[in-house]
Each structure stands twice: as C-alpha cells, then as structure tokens.
C-alpha cells in the first residue's frame, strides 16, 4: 500500500473532524474521496500529507508526496515564475537566484505541462482564480510525485482545464503513481476515478469501484434527494429589473442586456471571459470605462416584508427616493460609486470566494448575517438587539444554517455549505430585487447545492431577478431561463433555456474561437 491510514482521530477545538477514520490507496490508481462539506475530506488529506498531526491513529505514506490544497497557496505579490520555482529557483554562482532565468525556466515548465495562456511574469494576484489553480497544479505536477493529493482541484476550473488536469492525472496513474482527489462534481468522479471512497461525519463509509450518483448521494448524506434541479420553466418572468447598456469594464466590451423580474439569467462561457468583471461592475465594486445601468423599481414597497415598526417604513421610503435618483440615471456618467450605492439600489452580490470576499471568519454567524442591514435594526446608531436576534433566528431557521446551533459561533467554524448559506442569508435580509450570484455552489456539498438551487428558484418565484454564473456549466444549463455566453468580454451568444445540455453552452463558448 502506498497510502494507508487507520483509526485516525482529529479534533478542532472540541469538534471532531475525523473519528476513527481509515483510508487506503494503491499505487497506479486514481482514487476519489467523496463526501459532503464537513465530512472530513480536507482534514484527512492534510493528515495524510503531514500538514496536520492526527490526535490518534497511524498514517503510512511511501514515496514522494505532493499536495494541492483547497485554499490556494500562491503568494499574491510574487510572479507566476517566482511562485512556480519558489523552492528550487535557478541558481548561479554563489548560490544566488538567477532572476534572468526565472521567466524562461517557468515558461518551459508551463509549456511542458501544456499550459500556454499564463504569462510567467505576471504577478499571481492578477490571475483569475482558475489560472491560479492551474499554476498551483503545475507546481504540484512538476514534482513528478509518487503520491499526489488534490483537494478540490477542479472547483475553480472550466471544462477545458478540467480535461487538461484529467489528462495529467491519468498520465501519473499510468506511470504508477497514486492519485487521490476530492470533488463535488459527480461527473468528474465517475469519469476519472478507479475507486471511490465515501466519507460521512468524519469517518469512512464505503470504498467501491462502481457507484452511481444516487448511491453516492445516499451514502454521503445518509438520505435520498429528489430530482436535483428545480423546474424553472414554470416561473413567470415579469418586467425589467435591470438594464445594462454598452458596458465596458475590465475585460468586458460593450455588453448590453436586460434582466427581468423572476428571471434567472445565466452567464456562461469559458473561465475568465469577463464574467467576474461583469458582476463586480454591476455591484459597484469595479469602475467601468463606459456604459449605463438602470435598476427598475416601479413598485417599491409592495413586495416587501411587513416592516417591524414605523421608523423603518420612513427610512425605507427615503431609501427609495435615494434609489431613484442615485442609480436610475441617463447619460454617460456611471452613478454607482460603490457597493453601498448598489445595495441601496436593491442589488445583492454573493461572491465566489466566500472566505476572502464574503465572510468575516472570526466573527459570529450573527455578525456576518447582520452586517449589511445593521441600520435597519438600529436606533440612533445603537443596535436593537431584540430585533436583530429575531431577524437572525428567522433567516437562519429558514435556511437551516448551522443545524440549530448558536449563532454566536464564529463563521469560520462552519462547513463550506453552511458558510455559503450564511452569506446568502445576509443578502436575503436586504430584500434586494436583483441578486448577482457568482459561483455560489463552488466547493459546496451535494445536499447544500440542492438547497441552494431551490433557494434560487424560490427567489425567482418571488419576483427577484437573478444573474447567475457558475463554473459548473451543468448548473447554468439546468437552472436558467436564458443564458448569455461571454467570449473575450462580449456576449457571443444568447441561448433560450433551460438549455438542459451543458455541451450546448460549451459549444457556444468556443465556436467562434475555433473559427478565428
């Protein structure tokens, strides 16, 4: 056995992440590790590769080990080349680093592993998340290891990059290496894995050579789920909620579209075609070069939840006035000066990277959810704690966050799925009309994904307008009324949905690139 672990216990501050866990993997196999968030997959990998020490149990791993962790570990201020060659830079006389050779050496390495679109001289912070992941993977592959642990390697990758990685994983296996990976995308597991091990609640449940998705979900959750995607075609689409005209920002070039109430509008395309710029610009977090945005809000208070007292009514009505003058404007000047204005205009943004952009990890679940709507539950700047507790327990109950445990716990202690729900809860409290959902299911377990799909459909049913991007094209294909395919910053195609077949979106994403 190349990798063998038995009887592993590991706790974090009293919470058992692994209990009597065992795992074995052989040389010459690709072994998938499946399970919901919080099942202990990442902890197991950290224990196996020696980053974490087990509280009890034995671990045997033989051979040269390389690991790609779920949290990207590139140093943002170093260039791609410096990151790649961090541990073994080219050296000259006196043992000093030969900076002049760095870029050449790095681009040799990148092309050796079939990566052509990343400039080794650009700083890591300028890369898209998917490109960062690719660099991280090249760094791991370049070690030509005997044992490879890849924790969620594809979460940030688009289909083409997934195929690239799959090729390398197979090559390593065929060379006799042991490849262990985790993924929340069943298709990849099905395609790649020779064997699958399922974890639940920190312990080993099953290891199989063949496993259907339904069986796997049952094993992972301990229960059966109904049809994965809710039916969105029955949802009634209303009037315009958001109109974007001639938007140029970052990679975006002259993008125009309407988003209607009750509509789930998908944004597809290969990774890094300007999707992120689109979302950030609409939310006011990125300044556009040109373009107009208007947020339609003809009926302002009709759909709102009953306010808790007269004071809030007055403040909301005032906010509505600000909305009209602040954002619905004509002319070339952009009037969103920041997320504050966007929020006032009724826009919500759920970011892809919940740890860096969404959550305040050391703060409590309550503080995280309440943050954006603090002034609604305050008097003269003081927080009205009763109103706050009521609002928080209402929304956490609705979303089943943290399984009824105290909302005073730090958000960082939650599993990925619950963290994402926490971010969603924050925006549900804002009563926004337009939801910008950017890769909200990334790194989320099957059960939570399922909950999130239904949450999105419910939002649409309640007349919210939803702009939806996902690195899993499958989700866009099933969940959206309409799909805009972005290519090189422009809308290359508009597909009527539900598309149903992800291949169609992928085809539209690459069609003209192939022609050119």
């Amino acid at each position: 056995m190349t990798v063998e672990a038995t009887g592993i216990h590991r706790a974090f501050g009293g919470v058992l992440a692994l209990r009597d866990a065992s795992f074995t993997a052989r040389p010459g196999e690709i072994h998938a590790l499946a399970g919901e968030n919080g099942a202990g997959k990442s902890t197991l990998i950290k224990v196996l590769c020696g980053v974490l020490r087990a509280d009890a149990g034995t671990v045997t791993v033989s051979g040269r080990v390389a690991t790609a962790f779920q949290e990207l570990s590139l140093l943002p201020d170093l260039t791609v080349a410096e990151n790649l060659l961090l541990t073994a830079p080219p050296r000259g006389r006196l043992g000093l680093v030969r900076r002049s050779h760095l870029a050449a050496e790095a681009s040799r390495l990148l092309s050796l592993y079939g990566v052509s679109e990343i400039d080794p001289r650009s700083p890591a912070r300028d890369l898209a998340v998917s490109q960062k992941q690719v660099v991280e993977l090249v760094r791991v592959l370049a070690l030509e290891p005997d044992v490879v642990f890849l924790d969620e390697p594809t979460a940030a990758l688009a289909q083409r990059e997934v195929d690239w990685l799959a090729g390398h994983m197979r090559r390593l296996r065929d060379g006799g290496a042991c490849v262990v990976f985790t993924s929340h995308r069943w298709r990849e597991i099905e395609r790649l894995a020779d064997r699958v091990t399922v974890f639940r609640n920190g312990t080993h449940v099953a290891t199989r050579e063949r496993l259907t998705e339904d069986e796997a979900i049952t094993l992972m959750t301990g229960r059966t789920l109904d049809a994965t995607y809710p039916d969105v075609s029955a949802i009634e689409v209303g009037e315009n909620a958001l109109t974007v005209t001639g938007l140029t920002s970052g990679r975006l070039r002259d993008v125009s579209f309407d988003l209607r109430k009750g509509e789930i509008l998908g944004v597809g395309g290969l990774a890094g075609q300007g999707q992120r710029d689109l979302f950030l610009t609409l939310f006011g977090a990125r300044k556009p070069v040109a373009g107009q945005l208007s947020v339609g809000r003809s009926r302002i208070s009709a759909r709102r939840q009953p306010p808790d007292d007269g004071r809030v009514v007055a403040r909301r009505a005032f906010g509505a006035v600000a909305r009209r003058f602040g954002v619905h404007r004509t002319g070339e000047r952009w009037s969103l000066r920041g997320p504050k204005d966007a929020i006032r205009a009724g826009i919500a943004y759920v970011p892809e990277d919940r740890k860096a952009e969404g959550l305040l990890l050391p703060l409590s679940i309550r503080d995280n959810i309440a943050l954006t709507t603090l002034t609604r539950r305050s008097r003269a700047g003081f927080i009205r704690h009763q109103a706050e507790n009521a609002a928080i327990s209402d929304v956490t109950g609705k979303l089943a966050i943290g399984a009824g445990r105290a909302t005073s716990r730090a958000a960082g202690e939650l599993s990925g799925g619950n963290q994402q729900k926490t971010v969603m809860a924050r925006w549900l409290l804002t009563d926004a009309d337009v939801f910008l959902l950017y890769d909200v299911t990334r790194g989320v377990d099957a059960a939570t994904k399922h909950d999130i799909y239904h949450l999105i459909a419910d939002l649409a049913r309640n007349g919210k307008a939803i702009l939806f991007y996902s690195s899993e094209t499958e989700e866009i294909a099933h969940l959206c009324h309409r799909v805009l395919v972005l290519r090189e910053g422009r809308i290359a195609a508009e597909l009527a949905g539900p598309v149903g077949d992800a291949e169609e979106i992928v085809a539209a994403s690459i069609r003209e690139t192939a022609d050119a």
Partner: protein
Amino acid sequence: MNRRALYAAAIAVAVLVIGAVLTPGLASWPGLRAVLVVASFTGFVAAGQMLVVLVGGIDLSIPWVLNAAAIVLTTTSLGMSQRLPVALALAIGAGLAAGLVNGLGVAWLGVPAVVMTLGMNGVLQGLTLGLSQGLTCDDCGHYAPSPLRDLFAGTVPAALLVWLGIALLVTVLLRLTVFGRRVYATGVNPRAAFLSGVGVKGVTVALYTLSGGFAALAGIMLVGYGGQASLGLGDPYLFESIAAVVVGGVSILGGRGDYVGVVAGSLTLVAVTTVLRAQQVPEHGRLMIYGLVILAILFAYGRERAHD
C-alpha cells in the same frame, strides 16, 4: 468578551500584588491612586491607538499630536480659567484635525499608515518647535488653568472619573453600535466588509480622527497633572500606547480586542514601572526589565494562539 482581556486584567492584578508585597506603600489607596492616575494617560492614548489597530492600522503621530495639543492649551488659555473652554476646544480640535488628515491620507490616498502618521508626527513636531521657538513653556510662564489642575486633587481625582467615562464610551461604541460592528468587520476583512456595504474608508477616517482626539485629551490631562506643558511631553507615549494595546490582547493585525483589555494593559505597564522604580532599580535596568516583561507577556499570548 475576548479571553485575552481577562488575561491582561489578571496580569495587571498580579503585578500590583507583587508590587504591594515588595513595596508596602503601593497597597494603600494613595499608592494605588498614583498608579491609576499615571496609567490613565497611557489609557487615553491607547484608546486611540486601539481604535486604529482594530482596523489593522497604527498611529505613530501620537507623541506630537499630544504635545501640540498641550502647547495649544497652555498658549491659548494662558493659565486663565475663563479661557479654558475655548482652549480645550482648540486643543481637542487640533488633535481631531491631525487625526482627520491622517485618516484621509491612509483611506483615500492609500498612504501606508506607518508613513502617513510618522510624517504627521514630524510635521507637528516641526510646527510646534517652530511656533514655540524652541522654548519650553516653562520659560513662557504659561501654567495650566486651575480647574484643570483640580482634576487631580481629592481622594478620588476627577481625572480617574474621566478615564472611567472614556472607558465606558469606547466600550459602548464598539459593542453596542452599528459603527462598532463595522469597525470589527473592517478590521477582520476589509474586502469582505466593503462588499457587504460597509463604508470602509469612512470607518478608517473616523478612527484616525478619534485617535487624534484621544492623543489631544492625553495632552490636556498631562498639562493638568504637571501644571504646564513642555516640549517632548509626548515622547514616551508612542511606545506606551502600542505596548498597552498589545499587552491588552488587541490583535495587531486588526479585528480583535476590547478596551477593557487595554485598560488592564495600561495598568500593567505603569505597575511594572512603579514597582521597579520603588525597588530603586537603575534606569537602564528598569528599561530592560520593562521590555522583557512585555516580551514575556506577548510570548504567552503567542503560545495561547498556537493552542487555539
């Protein structure tokens, strides 16, 4: 409340108990009062320092903001009680203004806090030396107005009540208000706070402004305590403010800490100095032991984090 604030309080008590055993005078109310009064000055500057440290910043302009405010007070009041309200307003205003400029530079111009506040310290030092023509106000003969000096008289000096008031104010501000929540959010993760609609820049400016105000307050109290202002009055308070903040359990990276801890930190520092002085440890030895005590406390905090 954060666990470190309790540790800080425990350390302060421990140092005082040790001090009381070594030097009998310390156990009496006059002895304790003296420690408290001296600690209050550190407490004032550390209040401001803590606020900026909570958002991952630092205020190195404290010494000369404090000094400038003290000089403004004495030169505008000229020792006359009826001029005191105006003089107080001018001194506090000067501190707030310096803090405001610091905040604007850090938040809007993106100048690193260390550079911005160090620059401000230099500018104010130059300005103060230039306007006072290098003379200490000892020579000018300007004394503190008597109501200010009276703050330090009596069994329970009013100055301590001022400190108590400030402690309540800062704690309430941080724990019970919308602004306080935004401060912690900004300190923990400014990007996420920004994307949640927090006016990160506004929060930052407000905190630097407050820090300037607290430094000025410390300057005013020191004038009242010493009866006059002198050049170099604020010099010890840069180190003291930062030390009190870290000993008080505030994370230097931001987002974590309470003023209760900082109060305990201020007491610890002053108690250590007092005990060493009473033991007639020579100046150089005192400095070394003082530094070592702070390092030991921070080492203990570092261990505590590793166990989390």
